[in-house]
């Protein structure tokens, strides 16, 4: 199996599984109960909170455990009544669709455009701020094309205007060094299964003093900000995975970045391909390439038939193929957006994987181009003769 879909999810780290197991068996107690066995579970959650906080430069009382990145984003956006929100056209759906929903409820939303690499211009942000702007939400690193946003630059603008800034850092945390104080944000979302933790658990960082109502109401868990008995094993697993991921960043960041650059270089040797997203300011594991004249799903199926996992930004639904909103925001044509594949590298990938991938990818591209009427038309045009 060749796995190049680490931006979708990562294999769980053995240390995370090991840390979780006692909390799925003998340490089953409800951390809110008063007796000693339960207090031990409470203490384990407190330790986990401390570990997650220190991984991102926060204080433990600024970390709120959630069911994952989507809930964290929903909470940040719906946690206060909003008149005007500023976000971007290239957000994850867990922000974009929340904003669309809030628009139906009467909130106004400004969607900042991106340049052709997926970067938001600070000037555009500054110009979009209004007296009634209540929140700015900008993704830290794009999940499809990997472009990293200059969040610290944006927070200078929002902090000067006194507007809270939320960032969806799901693709960053555990892969790239990150410090909430240096970023200057008021809220940040993270998700455990993107760095070798379990699925169904994440966290929202909320800077002390930031007003925020709960999203889910009930018991007094998470200091009244997130009701519901804690996902104890998930929280413990997340903290174990994050601690290990952070410790490995000094060696893994350069290693995965080098693998990424090797893969980009090799794929771009296939004619009529182009890299989507920024070349430099890019997630260490993200490779997003458009293959001209072919459609992404058919290429993905070829890879799948040979046990190779990648993903496409385009999701063919409701009869018509909807190209990725991110690639469209970058200004790609429908053809190039429909022909894009994302390969996301992670801890388990090696240089051999890249060699093996290329041995599958190159002939698959050739085979599909031989099927393509667009390629035929291209070969007959003057563009080719030149």
């Amino acid at each position, binding site marked *: 199996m060749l796995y190049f879909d680490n931006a979708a999810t990562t294999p769980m780290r053995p240390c995370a599984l090991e840390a979780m197991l006692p909390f799925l068996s003998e340490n089953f107690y409800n951390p809110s109960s008063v007796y000693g066995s339960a207090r031990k579970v409470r203490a384990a959650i407190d330790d986990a909170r401390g570990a997650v906080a220190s991984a991102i430069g926060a204080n433990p009382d600024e970390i709120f455990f959630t069911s994952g990145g989507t809930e964290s984003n929903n909470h940040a956006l719906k946690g206060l009544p909003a008149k005007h929100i500023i976000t971007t056209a290239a957000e994850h759906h867990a922000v974009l669709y929340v904003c669309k929903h809030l628009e139906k409820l009467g909130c106004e939303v400004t969607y900042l455009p991106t340049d052709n690499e997926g970067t938001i211009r600070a000037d555009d942000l500054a110009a979009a701020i209004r007296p009634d702007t209540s929140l700015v939400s900008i993704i830290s690193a794009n999940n499809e094309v990997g472009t990293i946003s200059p969040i610290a630059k944006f927070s200078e603008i929002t902090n000067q205007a006194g507007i809270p800034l939320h960032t969806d850092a799901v693709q960053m945390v555990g892969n790239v060094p990150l410090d909430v104080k240096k970023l200057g944000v008021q809220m940040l979302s993270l998700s455990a299964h993107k760095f070798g933790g379990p699925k169904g658990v994440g966290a929202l960082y909320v800077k002390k003093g930031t007003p925020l109502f709960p999203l889910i109401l009930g018991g007094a868990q998470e200091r009244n900000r997130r009701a519901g008995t804690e996902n104890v094993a998930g929280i413990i697993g997340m903290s174990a995975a994050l601690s290990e991921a952070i410790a490995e960043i000094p060696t893994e960041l350069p290693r995965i970045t080098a693998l990424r650059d090797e893969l980009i270089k090799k794929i771009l040797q296939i004619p009529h391909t182009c890299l989507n997203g920024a070349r430099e300011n890019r997630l260490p594991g993200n490779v997003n390439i458009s293959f001209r*004249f*072919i*459609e992404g*799903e*058919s290429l993905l*199926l*070829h890879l799948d*038939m040979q046990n190779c996992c990648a993903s496409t930004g*385009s999701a*063919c*639904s*409701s*009869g*018509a*193929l909807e*190209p990725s909103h991110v690639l469209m925001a970058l200004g790609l*044509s*429908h*053809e190039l957006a*429909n022909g894009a594949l994302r390969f996301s590298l992670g801890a388990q990938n090696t240089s051999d994987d890249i060699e093996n991938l290329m041995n599958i990818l190159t002939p698959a591209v050739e085979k599909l181009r*031989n*099927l*393509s*009427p*667009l*390629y*035929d038309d291209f070969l007959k045009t003057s563009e080719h003769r030149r």
Partner: protein
Amino acid sequence: MEYSEKVMEHFMNPRNVGELEGANGVGTVGNAQCGDIMRVFLKIENGVVADASFKTFGCGAAVATSSMATELVKGKTIAEVMEITNKAVTDALDGLPAVKKHCSVLAEEAVRSALWDYSQKSGVAIDGLEEPKEHAPHAH
């Protein structure tokens, strides 16, 4: 969404790929905005499809339906080809996921568009055949 074994078999080993030498009916339908483009080539002799081929840009279902459609029309009379519907193509592939139904419609339209081209060039009138519609983005 899962493809039948037959769809995957036709996708991985498509029949009748490529431009057809001596084709006297060629039809192209779809557009890149929809995500699918199909071009069907027919060689019609004495009212019978002597040979057929295709080129397709699109998803797995688009490739498989083109492959199957060209298989189905080979050796058939024009009247018989006119009877081949998108359902016949879908059935021959042991079904398609609901969201991919438009691919079989496109395959039927591609065959008819090639027949129209043949009819225009040869002057042979074909009963019940209508001029292919221009495909507006997201029309199907």
